[in-house]
C-alpha cells in the first residue's frame, strides 16, 4: 500500500474522531449534537480496533494465531484501573485516602507493595506497556524457542488467558476479585463524567490507533516485514537462510502485546470498569473473528472488522441478546467460507470489477507446472 493510502487511513480515523468529539461538545438541544454515550461507544470501538490491529500483526503477518491477546488487553486495562482507583482518593464509600474500597471491605490494613507507584500516571503508563510486554516476552521466549507452532500455540495462549482469569478472580490477588476495579472518578484530574473528558479520550484513542496503524504499516512494508511474511509462509526456509525465527517472533509478539495493553488501558476509563471477565477466552477469540471479518493480513481490515462487528454486536444485543453468540459464530463460518479475505478482499474484488483490468504486464499468468 502506498504511503498516501496509509496516511489517509490515519487521517480518516483521527479526523472522524475529532469531528465526533467536537459535535459532542455542542449544546444538547443543537441538531448536530452527539450524545455522550455515542462518544464512549466509539471510543470503545477504537480500543477494540487497536486490539484487532495487534492480533492482525502477529496472525496476519507472522502466522501466530494468538487466542490469548485479550490477556494483554486486560493487563493493560488493570494497570489503568489501578491508577484510576488511586485517583479516587478519599472519595470512596469508606473515605479511606490510600486504600481502595474493596481493600477496606476485605479488612486490609495497608496497600500491597505492587500497588505502589500507581498514584503517578507516568509509572502507571509504563506498567500499561511493560507488563503486557514482559508477559509476552516470557511466554514468547519459552514457546517460540521450543518451536511451538500452529494449533498447539493457539491452545496454550488460550490456557494463558484462562489461567490469568482464574487468578484475577481471587480476592487475595488484590485486584478486586470478582468485581474488578470500578467507581472511577477522575482521569489525570479530569472528571470521567464530563463530556469534554469523554471527547478527549475518544480523540486519544483515535490518535493512538492511527499512530500504531502507521507504525505497523511501515513495519510490514520494510524488509523486516518481508522477513515476517517469509517466516509465516516457509518457516524452515527462513531458518536455513540464517534467520533466527524465534527472535523475530518474540520481537513482534512483544510489540503486539504492548499495543494490546495500551488498547486495554484506554478502554478502561471509557467503559468505567475492568474485571476478570476481560480475560475470558471468548474475548480473545472474538478479536480474532474481527480480524477475519475485516480481512486478515491487511491491517486496515482489522480496524474495519473490529468496528463493524462491534457495531453489529451493539445493535444485535439490544434487539436479540440471547442470539448474539450464534450470530457471531455464524458470521465467522460465513466469512471463512465465502470471504476468505474479509471485507477488504470483497472491496478489492468490487473495485477490480469496476475499474477496467490493467494491462497484461501486471496480470500474472499461471504457467503449467513442469512435469505435470
Amino acid at each position, binding site marked *: 500500500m502506498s504511503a498516501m493510502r496509509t496516511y489517509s487511513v490515519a487521517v480518516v480515523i483521527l479526523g472522524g474522531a475529532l469531528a465526533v468529539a467536537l459535535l459532542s461538545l455542542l449544546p444538547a438541544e443543537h441538531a448536530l449534537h452527539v450524545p455522550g454515550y455515542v462518544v464512549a461507544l466509539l471510543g470503545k470501538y477504537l480500543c477494540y480496533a487497536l486490539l484487532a490491529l495487534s492480533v492482525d500483526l502477529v496472525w496476519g503477518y507472522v502466522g501466530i494465531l494468538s487466542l490469548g491477546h485479550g490477556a494483554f488487553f486486560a493487563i493493560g486495562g488493570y494497570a489503568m484501573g489501578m491508577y484510576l482507583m488511586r485517583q479516587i482518593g478519599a472519595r470512596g464509600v469508606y473515605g479511606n485516602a490510600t486504600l481502595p474500597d474493596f481493600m477496606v471491605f476485605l479488612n486490609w490494613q495497608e496497600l500491597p507493595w505492587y500497588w505502589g507507584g500507581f498514584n503517578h500516571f507516568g509509572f502507571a503508563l509504563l506498567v500499561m506497556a511493560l507488563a503486557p510486554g514482559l508477559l509476552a516476552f516470557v511466554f514468547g521466549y519459552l514457546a517460540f524457542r521450543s518451536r511451538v507452532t500452529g494449533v498447539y500455540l493457539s491452545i496454550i495462549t488460550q490456557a494463558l488467558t484462562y489461567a490469568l482469569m482464574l487468578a484475577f478472580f481471587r480476592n487475595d490477588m488484590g485486584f478486586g476479585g470478582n468485581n474488578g476495579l470500578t467507581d472511577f472518578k477522575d482521569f489525570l484530574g479530569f472528571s470521567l463524567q464530563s463530556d469534554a473528558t469523554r471527547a478527549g479520550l475518544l480523540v486519544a484513542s483515535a490518535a493512538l490507533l492511527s499512530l500504531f496503524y502507521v507504525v505497523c504499516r511501515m513495519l510490514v512494508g520494510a524488509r523486516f516485514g518481508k522477513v515476517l511474511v517469509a517466516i509465516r509462509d*516457509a518457516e524452515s526456509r527462513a531458518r536455513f537462510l540464517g534467520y*533466527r525465527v524465534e527472535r523475530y517472533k518474540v520481537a513482534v509478539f512483544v510489540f503486539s502485546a504492548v499495543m494490546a495493553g495500551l488498547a486495554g488501558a484506554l478502554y478502561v476509563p471509557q467503559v468505567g470498569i475492568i474485571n476478570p471477565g476481560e480475560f475470558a477466552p471468548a474475548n480473545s477469540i472474538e478479536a480474532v473473528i474481527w480480524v477475519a471479518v475485516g480481512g486478515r493480513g491487511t491491517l486496515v481490515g482489522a480496524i474495519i472488522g473490529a468496528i463493524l462487528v462491534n457495531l453489529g454486536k451493539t445493535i444485535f444485543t439490544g434487539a436479540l441478546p440471547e442470539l448474539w453468540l450464534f450470530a457471531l459464530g455464524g458470521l465467522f463460518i460465513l466469512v471463512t467460507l465465502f470471504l476468505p479475505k474479509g471485507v477488504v478482499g470483497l472491496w478489492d474484488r468490487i473495485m477490480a470489477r469496476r475499474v477496467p483490468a490493467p494491462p497484461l504486464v501486471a496480470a500474472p499468468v499461471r504457467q503449467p507446472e513442469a*512435469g505435470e
Partner: protein
Amino acid sequence: MTEVTDALLYLDGVTVSFDGFKALNTLSFVVAPGEMRAVIGPNGAGKTTMMDVITGKTRPDQGTALFRGSADLTKLDEAEIATLGIGRKFQKPTVFEMHSVTDNLLLALKGDRAPRRVLFARETLSERARIDEILETVRLSAVRRRLAGELSHGQKQWLEIGMLLAQEPELLLVDEPVAGMTDAETADTADLLRRINQTRTVVVVEHDMTFVRALDVKVTVLHEGSVLAEGSLDHVSADPRVVEVYLGR
C-alpha cells in the same frame, strides 16, 4: 578446537535413530574443499537425514560432524550453520510464495540477520546489482517481478538455487534438484551446478541417473544409513552390492 581434518565437511561415525530405527548407522562422509559430490541411494537410505544432521535440523546420537575442520555442527542450530556458510535446497522447492522473485533473493542475500539490523535495512545499490547478477545466472530475469508462487515448478527449483547462491555459502547441499523437471531443464540444471562448483563445494542428492552421469563426479552410495560404495559412477555401478540394493531394481 584444533583442526583434525583438511576436509570442508567431515562426518565420522554419525548415528541417528528414530524409535530404534537407525536412519544413519555409523556414517562416515568426507567432502574436500572445491569438490562436487553426488549422493545416491534407495528411499530410506538416510540421504535426507544426513542433510538434516549437517544443517542442524537433527542432532546425531553419536558421531562427529565438522565443518572446515573446526566448527562442530552437532552443537549449532540451523540459523548458525547457515551463517557459517552451508546452504541447503530442499527436496520440494521451498520459496517464499507470497514474495516477488527479487524479494526472495533479497531476503536470501548474505548479510546481518539480527532483527534490529533488518529493521532499518534499506536495499543498497550493491544488493540490487548482486540480485541482477543472480537473476541472470538462474535465468529468471524475465519473471523478476512475479510472485514466486506463480512460477513453474522448474523455475521454483531454480529460484531456490538462486537463493542459495545469494547466501554465498561455501558448501551447497542440494536435495533432488531435478525432481519434476523436463529433460531440457535437467540438462540446464546440471550445467548450472557445474558452474556453481567452479567457486563452491557442492553435495547433490539425486535419484535421476542421467543427471548424475551428466554431473560426472565422484558418487557416494548410501544404504541403510551407511556408505555402501564410493567412487566414479562406473565404478559403483559395477559393484554387485550396489546393483543388488539399488541399480538393479
